[in-house]
């Protein structure tokens, strides 16, 4: 297989192979075409790029470090392990890369109001943050169940001046928050910019979010070449919708010697009904505007996802991932709640870095694979976010007499 030039995908129909597309109500179509034209224009505009880089540097704190995890490397006794420290970004995760970029798109296209969906609250906080910084008004849709689970992030968003609207339909999680955001956008499309938080949704969003997140992979490539003089053998990232993975993988797609490993949330196991493993247990279907792997029943009703980490608790996956999976360019592996939790503790105790539960899925896969690798190999883990947001949830779980996981 061969992933050709950077510029070819998605094609003009918004397709990554068979995946992607624009399956949305007609009301949104003119806005999506306009967004595509505006985006093409601004991405080749040197002033826009300068502005973007300025805010990434001065506000988000980029570039983020590539950290050699010495004690983890020794503990696992295999390859040299590096962590791409997206957890050190402002607001604590990679999400800010995308929200800065899209907020600038909103501003440059004359929109004064943004909306966003959020699961764990990280994208909601990153959206509320840029809204405050750029003086935009901001409404965030969040599942009622997630608002309960992530009450602190709800408080943060409101402190930042955003309005948080509970999504009370369906499973009351990220999927439903996204439905509500799209419904709201249909009604307010003429004066509102929708900042989608992952590489999902109708074209051109999967491309836009990937492009704003590719800074992760670009920086990683530069840093590893400087530190090691060569590219890594394997790169690991967690994947729900898949924006940190896509941003990390994208600049390496044509470097075929680099293996790309995406870690799906297997929840309580892919053979139970409680997981979010859309690649392993889903099949192609249409959700939130694009064709991709989807958890669904025989008749196409979307089935609820489960993961210990709210950020991976999503029944779909970005369409470019579906395509990379079919082509075999990236390897998609399931990681359970328990394995992620063990890795969460391991990294905290060995490196003094408390990872987000999402990112702990990627660490867990390295824990599994490293013993079968050799010391002259190099791996990079995308540490997409920090775990401060998860501390309360884990404390509650540990206090339960019979641990939930």
């Amino acid at each position, binding site marked *: 297989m061969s992933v050709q030039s950077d510029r070819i995908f998605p094609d003009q129909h918004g397709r990554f192979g068979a995946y992607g597309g624009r399956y949305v*109500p007609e009301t949104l179509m003119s806005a999506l075409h306009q967004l595509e034209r505006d985006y093409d224009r601004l991405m080749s505009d040197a002033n826009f790029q300068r502005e973007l880089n300025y805010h990434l540097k001065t506000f988000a704190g980029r570039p983020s470090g590539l950290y050699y995890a010495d004690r983890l490397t020794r503990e696992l006794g295999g390859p040299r392990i590096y962590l791409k420290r997206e957890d050190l970004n402002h607001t604590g995760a990679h999400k800010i890369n995308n929200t800065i970029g899209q907020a600038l798109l909103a501003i440059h296209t004359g929109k004064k109001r943004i909306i966003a969906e959020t699961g764990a609250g990280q994208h909601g906080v990153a959206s509320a943050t840029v809204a405050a910084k750029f003086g935009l008004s901001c409404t965030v849709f969040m599942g009622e169940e997630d608002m309960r689970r992530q009450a602190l992030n709800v408080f943060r968003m409101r402190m930042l001046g955003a309005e948080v609207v509970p999504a009370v339909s369906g499973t009351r999680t990220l999927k439903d928050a996204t439905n509500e955001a*799209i419904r709201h956008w249909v*009604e307010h499309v003429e004066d509102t910019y929708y900042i989608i938080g992952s590489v999902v949704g109708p074209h051109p969003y999967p491309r836009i979010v990937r492009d704003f997140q590719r800074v992760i992979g670009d920086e990683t490539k530069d840093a590893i070449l400087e530190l090691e003089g060569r590219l890594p053998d394997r790169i690991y990232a967690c994947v729900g919708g898949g924006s940190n993975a896509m941003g990390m993988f994208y600049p390496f797609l044509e470097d075929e010697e680099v293996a790309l490993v995406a870690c799906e949330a297997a929840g309580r196991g892919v053979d139970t009904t409680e997981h979010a493993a859309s690649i392993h247990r889903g099949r192609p279907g249409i*959700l939130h505007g694009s064709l991709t792997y989807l958890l669904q029943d*025989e008749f196409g009703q979307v089935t609820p996802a489960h993961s210990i980490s709210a950020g991976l608790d999503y029944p779909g996956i970005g369409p470019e991932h579906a395509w990379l999976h079919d082509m075999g360019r990236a390897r998609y592996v399931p990681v359970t709640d328990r394995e992620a939790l063990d890795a969460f503790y391991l990294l905290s105790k060995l490196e003094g870095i408390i990872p987000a539960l999402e990112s702990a899925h990627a660490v867990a896969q390295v824990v599994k694979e490293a013993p079968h690798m050799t010391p002259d190999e190099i791996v990079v883990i995308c540490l997409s976010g920090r775990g401060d947001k998860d501390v309360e949830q884990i404390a509650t779980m540990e206090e339960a007499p019979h641990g939930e996981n």
Partner: protein
Amino acid sequence: MERIEQSFQSRVGQSALIPFLTAGDPTFEDSLQLFRALLRAGADVIEIGIPYSDPLADGPVIQAAALRSLSHGFTLPRAFELTAALRKETNKALILFTYVNPLLQYGYDKFFRDAASAGADGVIVPDLPYEESSPVRAYADAANVALIPLVTPTSGAERIEAIAKQARGFVYCVSSLGVTGERAQMSARVQDSVRTVRQFTSLPVAVGFGVSSVEQARYVSTFADGVIVGSALVRRVEESTESPSASTVSRVEDFCKELSQAVVGDKIHLQEKEG
């Protein structure tokens, strides 16, 4: 497809009334009774909503109806069963309303063949815009089932032209920005959309989304060939789902009858065509 044309022509110089209900809401048997009531009450075209877990184009009332239906075990093949049962009793056009994913999972080819055998005349897919519609339309055409497109206030003349030229059955004009649901005010913009659509097709033009009262239905009938009423009917089912009964059926039937009497219209353009 011919039945759609006949249904729109059944009232000379007047608009067709196109009521919508969700199949299987609250149960299969109840909904069959409710659809029969719509026919008795003077509906010209019946829109049968296939319930879906993630209905992006629907407001809270129809979302809730879908959940009620699904929670009573409704599955897509039962929509064909319901259609076939109604087809035995009426010559009016029967239109299925479904989101694209259930259609994709069932298989485009099989869906339209089964829809045709059940006696359905058209299909509306609210999340299948023009750009994605070609493969679906090919199967619909092959089965002689109309793929009925939507146009909205944001469509613009160029899109409307492309959409109208590929339209089958009728063109569904969305009255306002937003999802389905009752609205106190009808946007005046919809008249512009209807006018633009007519420049590019001679198919009937129906207006829906937000038509919730008898007065609004009457107003829409002055400039559209069809008036689509959904949430206002579904709400009358919702209000009595605690104990669905004969009173639910008569409540829906009475309201539909009022709508039917209201859409007398002022259909100058149709009369012109005929004259």
